[in-house]
């Protein structure tokens, strides 16, 4: 399946780029007009979107800090996108000052962006790779080194697997990653779901069909199934705000409106 990638794709500014659209939602300016157009349309259709993106970003923060607090110092951020406000290494280092992070993204612009950000950081690395070609991804020197046996690693798959279609088999990707993770390692995963707002999710999916990567929302069962081979830590797979909130009141009355499920599992 591995095919030499002669020419990187995704350097054009005419196609909306999911990483840059995400940045829009989070109030960043790392984006172009096409990205903002898409974000604006998506928000008109679904005004809660910035909220959802923030919830995802908040889950990132909470899960990274939870795992750092649990003693993990190595992080593999798959689908890291543009290192917008609060990147993983900054979050983790609030607790583990020597945390090492490898950022991986398929988008060459996001990769360049990340490189600009961590250029002087010896504990960070940025890799351009296609998550779907998992075996090749794992052979990248920075990734292989991070996953060397002995130390636990936190693998982050946040808001990325819904850009992988059923044919591309996300369960297989997770399985191959799990095989490569040292025992005690953790998987933090968040994924768009049809559960909360099915009618919106469908339209949203159609809107994203024109972007660099189309969306595939999945049911709760299928998302739970992705954790096969992992022991889910409390509270299991839940809506984004429900995962170990800072304060009970911050969950809000209707967490299902967030339409994103999240969970953290440990490889035994």
């Amino acid at each position, binding site marked *: 399946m591995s095919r030499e990638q002669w*020419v990187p794709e995704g350097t054009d500014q005419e196609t909306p780029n999911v990483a840059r659209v995400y940045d829009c939602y989070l109030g960043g300016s790392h984006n172009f007009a096409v990205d903002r157009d898409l974000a604006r349309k998506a928000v008109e259709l679904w005004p809660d979107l910035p909220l959802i993106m923030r919830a995802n970003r908040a889950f990132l923060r909470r899960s990274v800090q939870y795992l750092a607090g649990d003693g993990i110092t190595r992080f593999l951020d798959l689908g890291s996108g543009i290192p917008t406000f609060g990147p993983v290494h900054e979050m983790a280092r609030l607790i583990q000052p020597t945390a090492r992070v490898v950022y991986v993204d398929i988008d*060459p612009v996001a990769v360049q962006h990340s490189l600009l950000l961590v250029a002087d950081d010896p504990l960070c690395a940025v890799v351009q790779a296609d998550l779907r070609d998992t075996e090749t991804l794992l052979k990248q020197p920075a990734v292989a080194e991070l996953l060397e046996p002995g130390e636990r690693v936190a693998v982050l798959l946040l808001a990325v697997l819904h850009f992988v279609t059923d044919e591309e088999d996300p369960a297989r990707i997770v399985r191959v990653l799990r095989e490569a993770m040292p025992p005690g390692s953790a998987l933090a995963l968040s994924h768009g779901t049809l559960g909360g707002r099915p009618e919106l999710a469908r339209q949203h999916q159609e809107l994203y069909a024109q972007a660099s990567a189309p969306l595939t929302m999945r049911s709760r069962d299928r998302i739970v199934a992705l954790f096969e081979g992992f022991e889910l830590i409390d509270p299991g797979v839940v809506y984004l705000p429900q995962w170990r909130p800072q304060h009970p009141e911050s969950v809000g009355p209707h967490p299902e409106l967030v339409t994103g499920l999240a969970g953290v599992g440990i490889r035994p």
Partner: protein
Amino acid sequence: MSGPPAGRVDPAAVRFRDSWSRLLRDGHGTVVSPAILGPLVYRTAELLARAHGEDPFDASLAEQAGALLVDAQFTDPVVLARAVALLQQWPPADDRGPALTGAFAAGWSAALRDRTLREQEATRLAVDLARRGAERALYASEARFRAMFERAAVGIGFADLEGNVLTVNSALQEMFGATVEELRHLNIATMVHPQDAPRIWEMYRDLIGGKREQFQCDKPYYRQDGEVIWTHLTVSLIRDEDGTPRYQVAMLEDITDQHRLQERLRYQATHDPLTGLWNRTAFFERLEALFADPEPEARFGLCSVDLDGFKNINDSLGHATGDQLLSSVADRLHSSLAPLGHMVARLGGDEFIVLLENCRGQQEGIAAAQTVLAALAPPFLIDGQQLAVRASVGVVEQPLSATTPGAAMRSADLTLYRAKSEGRGRWTLFDSRRNAVAVSQYAMSMRIPMALDRGEFFLEYQPLCTLDDGAMVAVEALVRWRHPELGVLGPEEFIATAEDSGLIIPLGRWVLGKACHQAARWSARFGAAAPRMNVNLAVRQARNAELIADIDRILQESALEPGKLQLEITESAMLGPRDPALQALRELVGMGVSLTVDDFGTGWSNLAYLRTLPVAGLKIAGAFVSDLHSAGEDPLGWRIIGGMVSLAHQLGLTVTAEGVETAADADRLRSMGCDCAQGWHYGRPARPGDITRRIVEAAGGTRRGPDGAGRDT
């Protein structure tokens, strides 16, 4: 100084701090780590409090608070609106309110503008870097392709779908001995060669029509200098992103050397090394192929060509000359017949054959035969000698559906044989009726071994009597074949074919054995009164190395006294003085067997040789005697016979006349001094019993007594 005194808690200030904290912890604040958010809330609230109360009013404190919010990515305008509203709800003691709010908004905006510009710049830089990386990768990719293209050992060329050559690599230029420019003026569709595989252009049309993605074949091309190169060609279609055919790419591997080797091997396998003509294998392949899938009305022709008397040339002038002659003959045949589209092959020795495919009729076959004869008519100059060569040609011209390759070849051979026997240097056309006779003779000779096994042959004996007193001194053994289908056949009906096929050897041995045993029985019974046994000896028998041993064995087995056996050899068997068979004949004479010359006068004999031959007599051919009485009185004829008798007597030979049918013939021959006679007048060929009775009658019972009379042995 204005504002609340130190140590006192201003309730409005407390309300502001609470509201401020809620504002920042909400929305974007959920993303921010508490470890960062807490100090941010405290610090900004503190800055605003100082701007609110300190004297003199310091606008930069409020600006700084706004900037800190943007630094923590509180970039949502809603945050600014709510912050301004909160500040309005907490009026300062003096009139600095609008200035404070304005400074805060200005600080926030300025920081946001800086941040936006910074992020946009970073984003553009990232895009730029990514694009440059992509371009480098593209360049590297192109460079790799270019290197592969340029340095490939195989020739590669691109063309559009109209067949216009767009670019070629150096290997292809070398193959064609042409420059890129020269090749770019070419169109694929014009690069036709007569030896192109039949389907190649159909495959090509399918390819450029998008009906096939690729094809492979071996194809010859003309180089720029006109030489031909053979290539193994692979042509592939290149489609664009939409799947529309755009270009074609051809890869050519130079296989000229392999091809030449193959051609050479193929040539060697199918050509005669001496003459360069097609060989036997190639001829039969072509003939079989012709018959394999014929058109319903298709005809073919065969000219079977044989040089007359080639053996003599070979024997007298040597094989080297013979080979040169064959080579020259082949050249003439090839140059006169190949242009007509006929295949000329050498089957072996001096046998050639011409195959006419798609023959239009007998006339064309005859014309080919005439061409052969005309081509060979002028003398050949070999080693400074002029050699005249004639040939015989058998022509077969038939519909393919009427025969088979094997039958056609037999027909051609038999027709050639007829051409030879009818006088050489001519062509003969196949005649199915005469061919049938020839075929039946052939079939007959093939049956001889079986007939011997089955006892289908038997002997009759014809008396030879003295002209003086009519006493039977000898009998001639004559072979008969009781053929199961054809009835009883005389020797004239099968001996010639038996001689041709070599079957005369076993048949002759059988006749000798049978005759000797019969003669021995008569000798045992009648002693000196028993007749001598005359047996014909064919030329081939005379030359057979086994002859002496055979006769010795037969004489032993039958216990026949050698003097009671006489062998008759035909005039044509008269051998030259150095013929090795002469020694065999001398040995026979040494054994006591006598020899006589049969059919004397019918062939050409060197009478002088008679002196050197160990013969005891000669038999004048029956034709002389029968000619005499058909023509009435023929003084010349009788004088010839008289001359022969006188000559024979001078050589000490006895003379026997054959074909003596009347008493008048007998009288005349007797008067001329002829010794013996054979013919109907003296007795027809008869079964042994009849001969036995005749011996008994001649003896008058005086020697053996009546008890032996009439006993058939």
